[in-house]
C-alpha cells in the first residue's frame, strides 16, 4: 500500500535539546540582538528563577 502523501504535517520546531535554550541566551547574545535593557532584565529574572529551580540542592552541614 502506497503511503498517503498530503504534504507536511504541522512543522514543529525543536531549536535546541533539553536544557540548552536558556543558557544559550547570554547577556552578550541579548546585546547582539539589541534587546532593550528592560526586556533583558525581564529575561534575566526569568533565567535566574530557572537556574535556582534546576540547580542541584546544596549539601547540608
Amino acid at each position, binding site marked *: 500500500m502506497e503511503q498517503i502523501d498530503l504534504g507536511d504535517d504541522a512543522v514543529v520546531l525543536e531549536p535546541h535539546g533539553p536544557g540548552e535554550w536558556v543558557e544559550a541566551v547570554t547577556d552578550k547574545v541579548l546585546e547582539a540582538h539589541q534587546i532593550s535593557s528592560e*526586556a533583558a532584565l525581564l529575561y534575566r529574572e526569568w533565567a535566574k528563577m530557572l537556574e535556582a529551580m534546576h540547580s542541584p540542592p546544596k549539601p547540608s552541614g
Partner: protein
Amino acid sequence: MTIRIAHLSDLHFGEKFNIALWRAVKDEIKRSKPELLIVSGDMVDHPSPIQLLAAKCELRSFAEGMNAKLIVVPGNHDVKSGGWWGRRKDWFERIFYNDDTSEAEAIAMRDFGEPLGFTEFYRSDPKPTIGLLDGLKRDLVGGSSFAAHLPNAPKKPLVNQTGINKVLVATLDSNSVGKRISFATGRVDDRELEALQAELRAITDPYFLRIAVIHHHVLPIAFAKAGRILGSEPLMVLHNAGTVLSILSEHRFDIVLHGHHHVAQFARLDLSPSDETGHTMAVVSAGCGALETENDAEGNCFNLITVAANGQIEVESFRYGGGATPNRQKRYTIYREPLTTTKRRASIRARERHSLHCRTRTQHYRITETGDLVIESTLEGLTTNDPTQFHHRTHSVKVARDGWFVDALFKPDRTFSSPGVKMTMSPASAPTSRGEHSRNFIVDLPDDSLRNGGMNYRVRYACANNFNMTRWECIERKGPENDVWDKEYVGFRVPHPIDVLDIHLQLPDSLRDVRPYLQCLAPDNYPAYELDANGDAKFQSDVKLHVDTGMTLHEASSLSYQLDTGTCTFRIEKPLVGYQYRVLWEPPSTPESLTIRTEVIDQRHAILNALSGRTSCASRWPARIARYFELFAEETERLLSRRADGENRSIEFFVYDSQETGLRPFLARRSWTTEPLAGDFLVPLGRGIAGVAFRQGRIVPWVKQRRSHLIEPIPYAPAPGEHVFEMHNILAIPICHPAYARTDRPPPWACIGVACFASTADGTRVARLLEPMDKELTEQILIVRGLAHAAIYAIIKSLEFPEEDDDKGTGGASNGEE
C-alpha cells in the same frame, strides 16, 4: 438478538409416556427460555382425537407459558390409524392446524372435568360424550359425534414467517397425504414440495435463518441403538429424502430438524464445499422426549439450538433416561458452527438481499502527529444486479468535537478511479451530545458503470484534530455519557457485501508504543437491519452497537502491527454487512507530577480570574502586567516581523481554560485596531496554530504558502466595522511551568498557555524557521521564547502579589521596573 429453539420429538403421549419425566423436561426447557418450541412429530402414540387435543392443549400451554412460538409437524403416529397399511386420518390437521378448537375442548372439560393436557387421565384415552342433547350416547374414538365438534382440516401452512428476527420455519409433512403409509416409512408428497417451493419463491423479505422441520430423517441414522431389530431400516426411511434435501439446499435452509428414529444425531451437509456461494445445512435429530426408557441412561433426548446474534449456530443435546431426568450439567454441545461457516452463510444472505457487491474494499487511515485523520477509501470491482440504480455511493466520517473536515483535501484519485466519477459534499449533521458530527459525501458513478467488470474508485479526505493524542486529552474532553472516553479508534461499517476488506492504519511516532487491537461490533438489530435508498445497510443512529466477542476473537489473528513503522493492518474475508470493524488503542499517558499540575492549574485560574470582566486590551490590565506584555510584543515584533509597508501584525497571549477545553486570549495587541478580540473567542484544544503548539508542547511556525491544510488559523469574529486581515505567517510558543522549561516537549498539563505572533506579510523570520536555521535566527527564536515565558510568569507573579497601584486599569506604558 440471540434466538433459542427447543427441539422435541417423539413424545408418544400414551401408554409408555412418563408424565413425571415430562414435567422435568418442561422445567429444564423453561430454564432455557426459548423463543421457539418445535416438536418434530409423534406427539401421541395413537391418533385419537382426544389425545391429539390433549397434546395440542399441553404444548400450547407450555409454549405460551414461556412466551414461545409453537411449531409442530405430524409424525406417522399422529396420523396413522395403525397396522402395516393403515390409512391416514385427518384429526391432526383438524386439531393442530386450526386456531380455534374451543368447542371440542369445552366438551372434554364438561365431560371429564379435567383440563386437557398430558395427564394420567387423558393418557388412558377416555371416550368423550356429546351430551344429552346429542343423543345421550357415548362417543367412540374417531367416532363422528365428537369429531363433529372439531373444525374441518384447513390448508396446511408450509412456511411460518415467525416474526422472530428474520427466522423462517418450513414445516414438511412426511406422511404422504392420500397414500397408504407403509409401516413407518415416509414420503413428502410431490404437490407439497411444489407448494413449498412456490411459497418460498414468493417471499420477498429475506430470512437470515431458515429452518425446516420434518418427522422422518432426511439422512440415514448412522447408528442404531442396542435392541433395535436388525434390518428394520427399510421400514423407517423417507423415500424421497434426496428430493427433499435438494429443495432445502436450493433454498438454502440452514437447519433441518427431525425425529422418528428415537436417536439423537447430528450431521453437517455441504453439497458444494468448494463453491463460495455454496451452503451448509445442519441436520439435527432429537430422540424421544419422555418415554419410559428402562436401563438406558441416554434413552431420551431433546435439543436446544442457540442461534447467536451473529448467526452462529450451536446445538446442545440433553440426554437422559433410565429413570433420570434431564440435567443441565449433563448436556452435550454436539455442534458449534465454525465462524467461517457463519460468515459464509451471512455473505450468501447479504448477497441475496443487496444488489451491490464489492470485490475489495481498502480503507487506509493515517493519523498525523497533530491528531489529524487522513483517509483513503478504495473500492475495486463494485458491481450491481440492477445497473439502473445505486449510482450514489455514500461515504461518511465522524468528526470529533474539536475536529473539522478539511474541505481542501477532499478529492477523488483520478488516476485510479474509473472515468466519470463525481463527488458531492453534503451538509454537516447536527452535533451529538458528545459534540461530534458527521460529514457525508456522495460519489456519483456514471450510468451503467456498475455493469460488466464493475467500477473502481478511490477517494481521499481528512479530518483535522480528530484524535486525543494523550490520556490527558481524553480526560479533558471526557463527556458525561462517553463510556469509552479513554480509547481512540478508527472503524469501518460494512454497507454492502464485500469479499475482502483490507484496513491499514498508520500511527505517528508519538503513538508508536500503543497496542492496537481489533473489535468487531454488531448493530443491535443485526441481521434485521434496514436498507437505505442507495441499497446499502442503513446505519441508524438510534441503533446501538455491541461487541461481538466471538467474532472479535475469530478475526483478531488477522491483525498485525509493525512496531518499528507504526503500521497496523488486517484483512477480513467476507466481513458481515452492518458490522463495524474497529482498531482501537489507548492514548499514552505521560508521568504526572501532582504538585506541578496543581500549580499550573492555579496559575491558569489566576489569569482566567483576572481576565473575568476585562478584555484582552493591555490598557484594561494593571500597568505592570500591561508592561510585561508590551515588552514581549515590542521585542518579538522587532525580531520577527518583516517590517514591510502595509504589514499588519498581531501578538497574543492565550491561557488554557480547562472548562472550555480551549485557549482564551487574555492579552492581545493588533497593529490595525485598538478593538479587543471578541470576549468569547476560543481556540479549541489542538486546533489552530496555538492549539497545536499547546498540545504538542512545541513551537509551531505556520506559513500560508506552505501549509498542509491540516492546521489552519482559527478565524475570530471582528468588531463592528473592523477589517479582517488574513495572516500569512504565524508563530505559536507554548508556555510551560518552569520545572518543565528544560524539557524537550513539556506535556500539556504542565503548560499555562501559548504566546503567538502573526503577520499579514509573507517572508517574515517565521517563514525562515521552515528552513535550516542559522545561528542568528536560532538566537532570535530562543530570545522570543524566553521572553514569552518571562513575561507570562512575571504576570502570574503580579497577579499573585498585586501592588496597590496595579489594579487601577489605567493602562499605558509603565517602566515595569518597580
